[in-house]
């Protein structure tokens, strides 16, 4: 190849040229399509949330060390209200998990939803961290919902998303709104998890054979109860993962910040 032909599509074409979807939209559309096919409802909620929905209702009480897991942007209190209200109680949602609670409040089981959306974290940005990004949350509530159902659902999802079968590995983890909580790793779709012995280390999984992809678990009974669902009768699973990270993995994007620059040098590649 004498020259980079990736963007050599001529500009002397005479029909109306198609525009380009943002890579996050591309992947979000696929996510919507996959879960719609699996019979999930797509739910949404506000980006400015209350402390209650973002934390308390998800079994993350104030002053609990678990709150350190979510660095939070708080909305400044209305100056008129200062004095009555000592601290801000509105925030930029740190995950789309509040949508779970909002949905459960208004709907009875059986529940099968995904909640994709923008979230915010108060952290310094670099190639792998951004103060705003997209998250995909999933929630299923019914009778006898198990970790095995979670595993099947996610395996099905990843197989469709990445276009090939991937193995999933569950490891113990902790999120206050699930019990048990697990971290989900998928076998590296690039090297197939076979790279440990290979001379060049796989640049996707860094030679571990696995990619850490999301947190999940069985819904904590307190979360069900706080939304008015009988935790003796119903159980459920929930999962949450970063959509930006999925897009970066799938398309080989090396810097998350590129996604928010409004830069066609990125977007027109898609």
């Amino acid at each position, binding site marked *: 190849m004498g020259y980079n032909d990736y963007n050599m599509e*001529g*500009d002397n*074409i005479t029909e109306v040229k198609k525009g380009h979807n943002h890579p996050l939209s591309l992947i979000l559309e696929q996510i919507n399509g996959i879960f*719609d096919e699996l019979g999930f409802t797509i739910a949404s909620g506000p*980006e400015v949330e209350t402390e209650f929905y973002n934390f308390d209702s998800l079994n993350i009480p104030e002053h609990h060390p678990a709150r350190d897991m979510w660095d939070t942007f708080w909305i400044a209190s209305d100056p008129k209200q200062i004095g009555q209200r000592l601290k801000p109680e509105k925030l930029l949602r740190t995950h789309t998990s509040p949508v779970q609670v909002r949905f459960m409040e208004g709907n009875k089981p059986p529940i099968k939803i995904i909640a994709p959306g923008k979230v915010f974290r108060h952290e310094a940005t670099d190639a792998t961290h951004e103060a705003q990004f997209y998250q995909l949350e999933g929630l299923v509530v019914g009778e006898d919902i198990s970790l*095995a159902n979670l595993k099947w659902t996610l395996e099905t999802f990843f197989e469709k998303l990445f276009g090939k079968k991937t193995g999933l590995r569950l490891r113990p983890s902790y999120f206050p709104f699930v*019990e048990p909580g697990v971290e989900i790793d998928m076998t590296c779709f690039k090297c197939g998890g076979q790279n440990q012995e290979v001379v060049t280390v796989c640049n996707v999984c860094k030679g571990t054979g696995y990619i850490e992809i999301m947190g999940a678990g069985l819904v904590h009974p307190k979360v069900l109860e706080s939304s008015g669902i009988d935790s003796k009768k119903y159980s459920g699973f929930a999962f949450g993962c970063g959509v930006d990270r999925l897009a970066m993995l799938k398309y080989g994007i090396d810097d998350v910040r590129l996604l928010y620059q409004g830069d*066609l040098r990125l977007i027109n590649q898609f």
Partner: protein
Amino acid sequence: MKVSLNWIQEYIDDTLPPVNEVVEALTMHSFEIEGVEDSGDDKILDVKVLPNRSHDCLSHYGIASEICSVLNLKRKDLLSQVTLSKTDKLSVSISTKNSSRAMKVLVTGVRIGESPEWLKQKLNLLGSRSINSVVDMTNYLTFAFGQPIHAFDAGKVSQNRKGQYVFNIRDAIKGEKITLLDGKEYTLDETMMVIADDTKALDVAGVMGGKETGVGVETTDIVLSFSGFNPVSVRKTAKSLGIRTDASQRFENEISASLVERVLPYALKLVVELTGGTVAGGVDVYKNPEKLQTVSVPLKKITSMLNLTITGEEAVELLARQNIMATVDGDKIVVTAPLHRLDIKIPEDVVEEIGRLYGYKNIEPAPLTLEAKVVVNEEVYITDSIRKFLTQNGFNEIYTYAFTSGGDIEIENPLAGDKKFLRNNLSSGMEESLEKNFKYLDLLGIEEVKLFEIGKVFTKKGEELHISLGVKYPKNYNRAKPSSGRMTEKVNVDEEIARTITLIEEHLNVSIGDVSILSGVVEFDLARIKKELDPTEKYPEDLWNMENKEVQYKTISAYPFAVRDVAVFVPNEIEVSKVEELIKQHLNTNVVRFAMFDKFTKEEKTSYAFRLVFQSNEKTLTEEEINSVMNPIYETLKAHEGFEIR
């Protein structure tokens, strides 16, 4: 938290397997290992202890015990618990609701010196500085067992009329000042807690000791302090003072008061060995001692949550490996966790313990057969329909930041001064993006910039979902050129947007209403578009592009690009592909784009104009490097009969 494998081995009877097996076992059954370092014949593991186990695993013994649980190894017996002889030299009291336990032990006749090598080495492994034998001992025992210990110089503590050293755990007084071991003076308030004598605060409870009562070479009598504090109180205090210590980190995770019993025999033994002092006795004030709790777990719950067939006996065995007592009782198991396991409170907690020890890898995927009513999300329906329509009509989708320098809604804790507000419009970001991308027309091989963004904006009225469209054309841009497709008349950017909006209305069969288009940018609230959706409505068949796009992103070069044109008259019978071939043979990797941009015929000759865009990922290209491609092209073209470079 860093732990030494040799140190961990001290608490385990069986020999530990090779480090990679330990790492694998912990990863799959307990905690992620963030790193393994060599240190002589030792290995240092960086264990990411989960928040729900920080109360019992932020210590070498805690990790050793966890390794024993998952690898089914035998723990060494700990030193037997000791009964503390009472002393009348101490007055110990608690007068705050935020402390449950205060145990003080007086050790007299100590000689404070350097720590022995083994102790220095252990602290050194964990990156902790050796100070003196007593301070080192307290740190060592914290890392060993997770119970923070503090040592006071008894001589600096005031005595009451009975000649007793006074230790009272109380709430701090607003404005009370204390200089801590870090040498800094702190002003306290009533939300904080101190250990105090009759006259002054000696220590900020659970956070850091005071400088004045710190142990030094001149100390002859010491008081060892073992406490139980309310985790929320310690956490708030540490946060507001801006201090994070090994002690506060443990206290804020709610350690069990029973850890004191575990560490006490080690402390009493070591303090004598290290200082030659005598344990005079102690006082233990322990309010509402912890009680063992039992949890009943139906076997059906275990099997249904994990979808595994585990018998009651198997479950009991898996729990026993963790020193969690359990018995089978008909169709349930009755579980009693040891005092230090504060995380076993509800049946689901027990299921987790069984599941993770059994191994989540043994869980086979089971299809989700649950059916639920699918409700179409109107917002998704509309935004995705518009998105699809716009990209099909040449608009490119951008995402920009929600944070801006001005707006209606202010962030309490912004990341930077220019990110203090949430955006209240998309137009500003759109204008910037139009400008920015306009500079890349040649690089991108496009003739116009057409963008859209869909996103939330935040106004005094609340959160709104907006869409913005933006169009920018080059000067004297003639949309009637061949590339304009079905448009034949010249239009300006505002007309193009107005036309697009009409097309959206037609396409979606909705009404958008009046919008104001300004200099090629429009923005409106998507709530204007009301689509009457039937409850049984489904998403349009082809709404989402489900094709698995095999795109691999190519890094955007950080270096400038350069543009060169070449135009040549050729005899009419020469095909354009022939001309392209002649040029292509000279292109190298620095040519990122090559395309014809103009063509016209004049009598027997046709002119073809090509544009070449040069850019490197490694450097700014020099004139010579560009010419090294262009000159051979000119030469080749010129050499052809009937060709004429324009």
